[in-house]
């Protein structure tokens, strides 16, 4: 790493005179505003992250519930197809958000963020394939359906808690605990009830988290306005 050389310092007093320094309060507000702007623009937006997965879980599991009823409102295969489509779109949206947040940055924060970000789709795919394999070994459909719904919820809880430890986030740790409990508790139910629980109490909670993040951000913006 090379430090730029050969830069001559100009008269410092001239800088101070030309910068119109205001009161310490305003200078601190300037610093805090810029720090907040930097943090907002260089970290994944929680409204997008929670919101995207909130919609996928809420709508996806609701469709699986409706398709799994004794008198289904839509074919289960159609519900599954839409759910998988939503997972693909969700991953794409989150991927775009990660690129937006981390572009032009280099160093540990970006590397940790990318590695952690990749852990999610790899982990979810692995867990889902294990359930598919269990089905191939003869696991009955209702049991496979229950595992297919609840294992990703438990994994979501674990990954949220691990992320909370990395970035010191109480909100994510709380959400992680909630998903671990929800995933475990809903494993004692059978589809389509399992899906209804994950839709309302999983997707619903993520949507609330997105709403709270949006309110906090708009509250701060008003406070600065």
């Amino acid at each position, binding site marked *: 790493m090379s430090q730029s050389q050969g830069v001559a310092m100009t008269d410092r007093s001239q800088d101070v005179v030309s910068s*119109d320094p205001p009161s310490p309060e305003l200078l601190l507000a300037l610093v805090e505003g810029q720090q907040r702007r930097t943090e907002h*623009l260089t970290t994944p937006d929680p409204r997008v992250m929670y919101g995207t997965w909130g919609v996928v879980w809420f709508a996806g599991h609701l469709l699986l519930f409706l398709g799994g009823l004794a008198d289904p409102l839509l074919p289960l295969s159609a519900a599954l197809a839409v759910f998988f489509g939503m997972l693909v779109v969700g991953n794409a949206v989150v991927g775009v958000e990660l690129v937006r947040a981390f572009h032009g940055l280099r160093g*540990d924060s970006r590397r940790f963020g990318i590695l952690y970000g990749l852990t999610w789709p790899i982990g979810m795919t692995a867990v889902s394939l294990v359930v598919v394999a269990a089905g191939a070994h003869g696991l009955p459909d209702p049991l496979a359906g229950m595992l297919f719904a609840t294992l990703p919820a438990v994994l979501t809880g674990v990954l949220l808690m691990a992320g909370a430890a990395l970035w010191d986030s109480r909100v994510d740790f709380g959400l992680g605990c909630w998903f671990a409990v929800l995933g475990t508790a809903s494993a004692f139910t059978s589809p389509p009830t399992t899906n209804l629980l994950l839709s309302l109490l999983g997707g619903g909670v993520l949507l609330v988290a997105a709403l709270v993040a949006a309110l906090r951000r708009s509250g701060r913006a008003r406070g600065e306005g």
Partner: protein
Amino acid sequence: MIPTPPELDPVIHAQARLRVMATLSTLGPGDQITFSRLQELLDMTPGNLITHLRKLTAAGYVNTEKRGGRTSTTFVEITPRGRSAFDHYLAALHDLLTPSGHVDRVSSPAHDGRAPHTKEP
């Protein structure tokens, strides 16, 4: 006896450079940012940013590094010395605001009470 006001680092004590330091110090230790992304975060013209980065670099507060061949990218990062200077600057500002503080304004011959221009979206 009139107490002396805490010293404010003149390299940082210009609104544009204060914003540059606030931005770079918010990134993690060892993190670097491209010149163009830094420009986007600060909403500054390239010429303006280059001028201020030169001053911060000369003071040893910022490192710049060019990478790549013909279409090279310039990466910018705050140095440990810069981080420490920025922390001291903020501590001095806080001192000015404490009840035991003796001045409520940063003394400057050019002070005209104008509010700083922030670009929070």
